[in-house]
Every structure is written in C-alpha cells, then in structure tokens.
C-alpha cells in the first residue's frame, strides 16, 4: 500500500548521466566522454596530466624531435554546457591548459634544455549528435536514455593566445591556429543497467593545422593528422567502470622550412578507471603509453591522467534543495 515516488533514485539517475561531461579536449579524452546527458547541464572539469615523450606533449601536431626528452605537468580547467540544437543534444566547452613543461633536445644544430610555464592555448569545442537518441530534455528521457549506436559531429578550435616565445623550443602555446573535425561513436553492447553497461567507443578525427611561421625563426607546417581512439568500456559496479584504450595516429607529417619530416604512425595503449563519487563528482584516472616507438623517430608518449569533474543541473539541484540535501 505504500506509495513511494523514489525521488532519490530519479535524482541519482539524472546526475549520473550528467556527470559524463567533458574532461579534456586537446589531450586524448577518456572513454565515456561522449555519453549524452540531460541538456541544460553544466560541468567544470579539472584534469591533471603528467606527460613525457619525444614531442611537445602540448602540441597535438606531435612534432617528433629525435633523441629529445620532454616532460610536462599540466592542468586543464574549463567549463562545459549542454543544450538542444535541432532537437539533438549539443555541447559547447572551453578549456584552458596551464602548467609547466621542460626537456632537452637538439634541433637546427642547437641544444635546448628548457623549461617554461604559464597558460596554454584555449580550446573551444562544439559537439552535436547526428545519429542516436534525440536530445535528453527531461528526466524521464534521461531515465530511458540508452545510446544504442550514437554518432556525433565534433569540431574543435584551438586559439593561439597561449604563452609563446619564438626563441624557445618549448612553449605552452603553439602560435598557430589548429583544430579538428571528429565523429565520436558510442556503441552500446548489451543492457544499459548501471553496473553492467558495456560500450565500444571510437573517436575518428582529422586534425588540421595552420603554419607556425615563427618556430625558432623557421616555418613549421603540418599535414592533416588522422587519429582514431578506441575504448572498450565496462562497468565493474554501478559507480565504477574501466576501459581499455587504444590510440592510433597517422599522417600529420611536419615540415620545417619545406623540409619534410615523417608521417606519424603511433599506436598507444592504456587503461582508464572511472568512479562516480557522488551526485556531483566524477573521478577518472588513466595511463596511456606508445607501444610502437622502437625507432628514435617514432613518436613516444607516456601520459598519466587524473580528472575530476563537478557537474550540476539547475533542476536536479533544485530537487536536492527541496529534499534537504
């Protein structure tokens, strides 16, 4: 006879979905990044990354400097908001990298041992769903959301306003416009019950670069870079999930004053763990390293990443306030 509306479970469902908001754009994004959520939601991500390799980890052109060694400690902070466009789910986000980078390399007959810090180039991102469930405009739709086969269109634009010194090999900013067009894919495998969700996710993308006409006094140009990120994700518990991550990059040949380098051909593998801390917080931690880096000219990458996202939605927050939380 008891009549219960189970509002607590409704709240939890809505917020769980909402916490899949962006965590990073210029770096490789974690799995489950493009799950949809209740439109009108907001998120502030903070991403901490510890990176090393033989290319500037902040430069998605991944310009390889053989025999070099770079290390970077970077934090990304930003803001994202979801909304509806043509009845499809859409998202805009802005992220700003800050941190420090250091390393040593030889280039143009010069030896560089440098370090720098400060603000990097901000990223502006727009994502709209093309195939899959319509925009989630209310909690009932959020409750019923299942991605099935979902495909988005993504556009990133990185604005060259970060700190840049044309006399330095290493910089936080890249001194050129660049961006990418991508098609995030989420493919649901099996049921969509929290604790048992499984997905196969892909992020094919093409990066496009303007020239950096003042790279140590030289002109740096980069061909389009192709990238496919793949994730097999699985819930271990309704609040804990993991993924196996594979990242391939190809193309993206860089040229210095017209002298061509090599195309990239990198395969990286890694893993991610995600934990739903509470109705507002989502935590992920992961590691990814290149495995196709035997040759000194091969791209070497090594990334530890921890992200914390605070997400909220006015409706859900209002319900929580009424609930005395």
């Amino acid at each position, binding site marked *: 006879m008891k009549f219960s*509306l189970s509002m607590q*479970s409704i709240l939890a469902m809505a917020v769980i979905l909402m916490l899949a908001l962006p965590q990073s754009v210029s770096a490789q994004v974690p799995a489950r990044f493009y799950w949809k959520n209740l439109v009108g939601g907001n998120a502030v991500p903070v991403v901490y990354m510890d990176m090393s390799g033989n290319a500037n980890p902040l430069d998605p052109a991944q310009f390889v400097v053989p025999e070099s060694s770079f290390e970077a400690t970077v934090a990304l902070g930003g803001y994202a908001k979801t909304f509806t466009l043509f009845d499809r789910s859409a998202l805009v986000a802005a992220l700003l990298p800050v941190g420090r980078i250091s390393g040593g390399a030889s280039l143009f007959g010069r030896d560089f041992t440098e370090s720098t810090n400060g603000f990097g180039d901000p990223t502006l991102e727009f994502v709209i769903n093309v195939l899959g469930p319509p925009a989630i405009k209310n*909690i*009932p739709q959020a409750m019923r959301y299942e991605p099935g086969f979902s495909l988005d269109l993504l556009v990133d634009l990185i604005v060259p306003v970060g700190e840049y010194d044309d006399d330095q090999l290493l910089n936080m900013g890249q001194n050129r416009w660049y961006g990418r067009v991508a098609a995030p894919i989420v493919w649901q495998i099996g*049921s*969509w*019950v929290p604790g048992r969700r499984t997905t196969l996710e892909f992020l094919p993308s093409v990066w496009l670069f303007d020239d950096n006409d003042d790279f140590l006094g030289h002109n740096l140009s980069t061909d389009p870079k192709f990238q496919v990120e793949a994730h097999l994700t699985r819930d271990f518990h309704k609040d804990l999930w993991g993924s196996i991550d594979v990242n391939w990059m190809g193309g993206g040949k860089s040229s210095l004053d017209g002298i061509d380098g090599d195309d990239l051909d990198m395969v990286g593998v890694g893993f991610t763990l995600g934990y739903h801390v509470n109705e507002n917080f989502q935590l992920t931690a992961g590691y990814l390293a290149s495995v196709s880096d035997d040759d000194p000219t091969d791209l070497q990458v090594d990334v530890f990443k921890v992200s914390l996202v605070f997400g909220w939605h006015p409706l859900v927050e209002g319900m929580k306030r009424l609930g005395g939380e």
Partner: protein
Amino acid sequence: MQWIKLPYRRAGIMALMLSASIAWADDRPNIVIILADDMGYADMGSFGGEIDTPNLDALAAEGVRFTQFYTHASCSPTRSVMLSGVDTHLNGLGNMSEWTAPNQKGVPGYEGYLNDSVVTLPQLLLRGGYHTYMTGKWHLGKAPDKIPRARGFERDFSLLDGGGNYWDMKNVTALTPRLVFTEDGQYLSELPEGYYATRTYTDKMIDFIEANRGDDNPFFAYVAHQAPHDPYHLPKEWRERHVGEYDKGWDSFRRERLNRQIELGITKKGTALAERMWFIPDPTQLAPAPRAVLGMKMELYAGMVENMDHHVGRLVNYLKSIGEYDNTIFLVFGDNGAEGTDLFEMIAGTPGTLNYLNAAINWSNTDPKAWGEPGSFIGYGPMWAQVSMTPFSQYKGWLAEGGIRNALIVSGPVVGRPDGSINDAVMHIVDIMPTLLDVAGTEYPTHLNGSELPPITGKSWLPLLAGEADTIRSGQDYLAWELFGNRALRQGDWKLRWQWKPFGTGDWELYNLATDPSERSNLADQAPDKVAALRILWEQYVAENNVIIPSRSIFETLEKQLPKRVPDDPGYPPLINKRQFVPPPEMVKEST
C-alpha cells in the same frame, strides 16, 4: 459462496463414474481454461483495454463476453472453487494459507489447501473419459497427496507456490527461498533449460496434447498462467513495446478505458468511474519524472499481458494446426482483481529482517533499467490496478467490484450466441464445475470413497451459452463472499458489503450495482430495510458454509498505515489546481 435457492444438485446416479472411465465414441468438445493471474477486468482489448491482446480478442470475437462474472478476491480461493465447485470455507481455502488466522487454525475448511472433502473437476473429467492436463500455477497444496497429479491431472507441469521468479526457482520469502514445481507428479530439482514461465507452460501444454493426439479422447487443458502476476519478469523485447506511453498517468487511461467499454457495450452509458483512491496522487499534479517512473511499471505490465496473449495465440494456432480448434471450448478469465498491494514491500520491506536480507541478495536488481530482469521485483501499484479494474472500485484482496469482478470470455462449440456478443448475466467461478461437467456429459457424484461430498452450488452456463436463456440466476438467488474478514453478498442488483477500514467503513455498506457499479454511493442509511434483509441472507450463508470471521487479518492495521480517507473531489484543493491567469492582451503594458 453459495446459492441457497435451487441449489445445483445432480442426482447421485452417476456415483459409479468415479470408479470407472467411460469409453465414448467421442465427439465431445475439448476444454481449455486460460487463467490469467491478477489480470484486470479492463485489460484485454475486448474489454476496453489499450493493451494489445489480439489472440484473446479473437476468442472474444468468436465467442461471448460476460460482464458480470465473479471470482474470489484472491487467487487460491478462486482456484479452489473453480476446481471443486464448493465454497472456500468448506473446500479448505476459507483463508489463504499465507493468512490463516489463529481462530481458523485446525478448523476443517481452513486447511490452506484444497482438502480431501471435495472431488475435483479434473478427477471427474478424467473418469469421464477426458485427458486432463495442467500447466502453470497451482497454489492449492504442496504435499504429495495435494499436488495436481494427486488431484486429477493426468499430466502436469506446475508451480505449486503462489508466484515468484519467472526465470528460475527463486522465491521471495526467506524461509521458503525456493519455488516448488512438479511435473507429472514428480517434484522438480531443476527447471528445464530455457525456462520462462509463460512460454514453458505453453510449450508443455502443447506437448501434453500432442502426446495423446489421435486416441480420440477429448482433453481438458488448464493453463494457469503465472502472468501477469508480479514480479513483472519478461524478455527484453517485450519490455519496450510501450515506452513512454503511460507517462500521462492513470486518470487518463481510466477515462479512455471507460469510454471504450461504453462504445463496446461492456459498460452502460452514464457509468461513472470509481473514486481515485484517496492515497493515490492526481497524476496531473505529479512532475514528469515520477509519472515516468510509475508509467514504466505499467509498460511492463502491459508487456506481461501481451506476452501472455502471444503464447495463448501459440496454443490456439497449434490447436488449429491439428484440427482441434473448432471442437474446443475456451474459457478465459482472471482469478481476482488486479493487484494493487505492494507485495514485495510487505514481505521484504523491513530492514533487519530475514526477508530483507533475502531480498538484498536475490531481489535487489532495482535500477529501472533492470526492471523485468531476473532479480527485479516490480508491481504496478494501486494507481494502475485501478486502471486495470476500470470502472470499478478497489482491487485484489477486497470485495468491492474491483476485487472480485472479472472479464470472462467463452468460445467454442457450446456457444450458440452471435459471435462477439456480450451478456450481462450474473455468473460466478463456482459455476464452472457444473458447466464443464455438463459439457462432458458427466455428473457430480454424491459420495467419494464412501464419504458424502458437499453439494456443488453453481449453475450450469450451457443454456445461457446456447442462447436459450439470458440469465442463470433468479432474483432470489444470491452470491456471497468472505475473505480476510471482508464480507459481501449480492442479490439481484443489490450488494451488501463489510470491509476493513479505511477501504470500508468497518460497517455494512449497501450499493445498487445497476445504477452504481463503481460503488460510489453507500445507500445503507437510506435503505435500512434492504440492509437488514440482506444481512439475514448473510447470516444464512455463514451458517451453511462454515464461515469463521478471522481473528487476525492482512488488513487489520491498514487504517494506521494509510492517510486519512477523504473524498476525491475533482480539482480540490484549488490552491494547486488553479491555472495561470492570462489578462486580455489589449490590457497588457510594460511598466513605465
């Protein structure tokens, strides 16, 4: 339940039939009973439901629908009467075994199982030359001498419990954690591979019929579906047929079903809906999220009914394929009103109890995305039970019309009425025994193994089905019920009712069902003479049928659990029902 006028007593000349099967040169019809567990009066399309039930509706279209068919208010009492033709208080189900009261313990008629004082319908049909098959829920006893094989079913695949998991042997209660099944008189240690209750019951019944096909004996097939009883377990493809359709809430569906019932001729024009029970919210005042959560429960229920309909269709198609359909009588009905009580909460809702622990381990698949899967336990609650029982008041367990009135379809060679016709005769589950004995040409004996049998008190429907009569009961005949301490009696259009508070008043109430089938207007104060006359019949019923009012009841503390009962005046209070005032556009201006 008992008729005191013209009791159905067959002459005892056929007592010998108990000891010898009769060899018929047989063109007697086969008999199929489709019993749906907790299905509501208004769920089938042919009774006004929006649920897609093409196979059941096809039977209705070829047969006749009865609008005033009564069962008991819960399952095992109904089944006991159907299979024995004898009142519950005599046949062992004076109370459900789960709720036997202290003052009923040890009293004959209250054993909690179908007792040995009665002979069963399948026993008589078997000895009359019928094959007798049963699949599905039994709920009338578990001991070796109480199981279907011992009570007359030649073949069976039976769930002996009252309900449980549809996929495996898990039960809900901690001290009876394992469901008990029998097959052909043997207890099962495990279920067949790929078991799903509704499908397997159908498969088994087809197997039973197929095994004896060709020996020219007719069969009695009792398909006692577990569906759509909670928990609502069903394959995924059946869970997602009505996504979002029920989000608009129960009131809309009650109105729509009533309108369709009036269009179909199931319900008289001018009939009012019963009150929305006072503790059920007005769905228009609910936010979309809780409406959706509650709507999802009804989506599952609709899927349960549709899945059952699908499997009924498989059985029908099989009978057509073997050429037996045209010579088969179908009876389709539910066993009581739709279930509005939260059974899971009642059993497992108290932290710290064994049942709570059992539920935490086996029944905690609670995410709405998992509803319908094994380990989930979803019932649809009182708001949707009222929809299922449109236009009536209340639901299973109670003796308002919503607890005991059921949709009945009868089709087959005994039906001489126009295809798809509707009849309003007052009928009862107790009639099934004499009706089917008539169909089989078999008599009800006076004695069994030297003991005198209680008389069966129902009325054969054959004249009614043939179109030779429009009713089977006179104005003096009456029906009576008692269960859990609730009491009711119907004579003609009048119904006397006593129910526990707050569903009842704790006193006798009087309703005229001809003008008020929804039992909105208690006329007890206006017609005290009628109350007094019907109470005399009630006392007669009690005396003749061994009725012992229980000293304890499932409903004894309900008044303290529920909010105070108030009328369901539409639009009250205006505080939350008023709509935004919109001034005339020409009088609107911006402030200067």
